[in-house]
């Protein structure tokens, strides 16, 4: 019998270079697909710009003006902040149905702590923010430690928070004039900055800052990478050395805090503190809509928070544009519905890595 064939020896002559392939051959669609894969916020940005151009062409300067365009920002500021919070949860492959309710309850807490107990408004706001963080912590603990599905936890929390909101406030609204006279700090985020025809409220500035900060943190810090890893595959993340519990807890707490910020933004936007604000009931769905249109995968671990902001803006552009065009508001809902389905279809296409 001959000596065993030393088949491995042949590899000694193999190339030692890093493999390189011609990238140009992929073609336009291929490269576009690649760009979408690496920059998931591109799709909602294209849709947003296209929508602004179309409405601008149809409606003219009535729509395409600094005033109208910044009005959209003001109209989406609450949903925009809630969408930022929702994005974090959805990146961890969860969902939060309680975001809007937490925002309303925290705005009520900020108002009542000031007016019922006479606490200085600055501390009332701080207390409201801490309160939101605490609700977030309860959600996080139930999801991460008790291992209940986020949908169930936040479905329950939504009802609990909304009911507590009515019970605690005795369904009483604190009037705008009273706040203005006695505790103007509560309306702080309603202050306006005028630049030519453009009007920015501090709430809008806060929303833009929040999105910028979260985008940085998610991209460029270890915590951000862990959020993606936990959303992608929690078991793998745990084995790879991520503290999944700590990551989830911190995400839910940050989200509670951001929801409370949204509550403060609400006081600035409406002037008054109202326990029956619609945000409590539909804020969650509005935020989820923005996130989905913004291209964040509901399966977790993919997408960017900037996309969610574009998603919120797209909804705002459709609402204002169609209203200015005198269309029946149902057209807005119809088009948003189409966008949601289209966005998920595009998400599936992008995820096809083999294309």
């Amino acid at each position, binding site marked *: 019998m001959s000596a065993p064939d030393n088949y*491995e020896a042949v590899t000694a002559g193999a190339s030692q270079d890093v*493999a390189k392939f011609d990238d140009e051959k992929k073609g336009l669609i291929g490269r576009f697909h690649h760009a979408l894969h690496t920059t998931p916020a591109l799709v909602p940005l294209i849709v947003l710009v296209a929508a602004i151009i179309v409405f601008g062409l149809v409606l003219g300067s009535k729509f395409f003006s600094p005033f109208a365009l910044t009005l959209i920002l003001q109209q989406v500021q609450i949903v925009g902040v809630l969408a930022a919070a929702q994005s974090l949860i959805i990146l961890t492959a969860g969902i939060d149905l309680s975001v809007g309710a937490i925002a309303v309850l925290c705005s009520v807490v900020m108002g009542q702590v000031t007016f019922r107990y006479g606490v200085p408004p600055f501390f009332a706001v701080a207390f409201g923010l801490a309160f939101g963080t605490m609700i977030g912590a309860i959600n996080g603990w139930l999801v991460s430690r008790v291992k209940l599905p986020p949908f169930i936890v936040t479905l329950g929390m939504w009802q609990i928070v909304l009911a507590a909101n009515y019970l605690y406030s005795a369904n009483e609204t604190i009037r705008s004039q009273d706040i203005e006279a006695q505790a103007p700090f509560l309306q702080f985020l309603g202050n306006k900055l005028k630049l030519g025809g453009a009007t920015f409220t501090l709430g809008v500035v806060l929303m833009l800052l929040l999105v910028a900060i979260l985008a940085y943190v998610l991209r460029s*810090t270890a915590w951000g990478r862990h959020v993606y890893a936990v959303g992608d595959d929690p078991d793998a993340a*745990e084995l790879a*050395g991520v*503290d999944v519990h700590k990551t989830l807890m911190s995400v839910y707490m940050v989200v509670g805090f951001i929801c409370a910020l949204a509550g403060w933004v609400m006081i600035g936007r409406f002037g008054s503190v109202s326990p029956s604000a619609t945000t409590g009931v539909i804020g969650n769905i509005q935020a989820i809509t923005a996130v989905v249109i913004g291209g964040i995968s509901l399966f977790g*671990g993919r997408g960017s928070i900037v996309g969610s902001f574009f998603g919120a803006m797209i909804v705002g552009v459709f609402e204002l544009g169609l209203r200015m065009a005198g269309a029946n508001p149902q057209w807005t809902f119809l088009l948003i519905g189409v966008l949601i389905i289209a966005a998920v279809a595009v998400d599936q296409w992008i995820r096809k890595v083999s294309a």
Partner: protein
Amino acid sequence: MTQPVLTARGLTKRYGKVTALDRCDFDLMPGEILAVIGDNGAGKSTLIKAISGAVVPDEGKIELEGAPVRFQSPIEAREAGIETVYQTLAMSPALSIADNMFMGREIRKPGLAGKLFRKLDRPEMERIAREKLNELGLMTIQNINQAVETLSGGQRQGVAVARAAAFGSKVIILDEPTAALGVKESRKVLELIQDVKSRGIPIILISHNMPHVFEVADRIHVHRLGRRLCVIDPKEHTMSDAVGLMTGAIEPEAA
């Protein structure tokens, strides 16, 4: 007699009615390559998970360098210097190779950017990741920033092995590290194992590939039905002996 680096006594782990580990003993000597062989479902992966903190055993005790340890999570084992390549590889598919290699031990930028803004030092992490992959001969990986899901199964395994070899300081555990690898890449992993050994770090190697096991192992731990059946010396036994033992065709005394 030299002290073992790692010992385990009476490890038991049950999953409901299934007993994956049944009063299992285990010893790893300093600087050795210990192969663990056994049938599918014998409990090899569960054994190394108990050692690496991924599974908390129901009973039994583990000692690292003579001191009792009770890891509650893989992070604790990693901090103690035990690095593991799991059979499932434990990668986040959507994240890049560099992100995955440094998961849980990211490098921050020096100065204010890192301290205050906790900014990651991407270029540095990418440089090290590239270096480690080159050491393993994983030249077919073109882009260190490509998502792990775009790699082939073998490339993924290579990245996982590179990660463990780069960071392990006391013990490196490899659960079937060459199962998906090609001839050239398997050879590189075997060379890497020898290389790690020459650095004085002991290795636990789980493999179904008998030629590989007999080539590199100093001792072979034969695992059967959730426990250590025996430990054999590859120089005094044949591959047939080993296979006979692990399948139950031969009794340990007869071998």
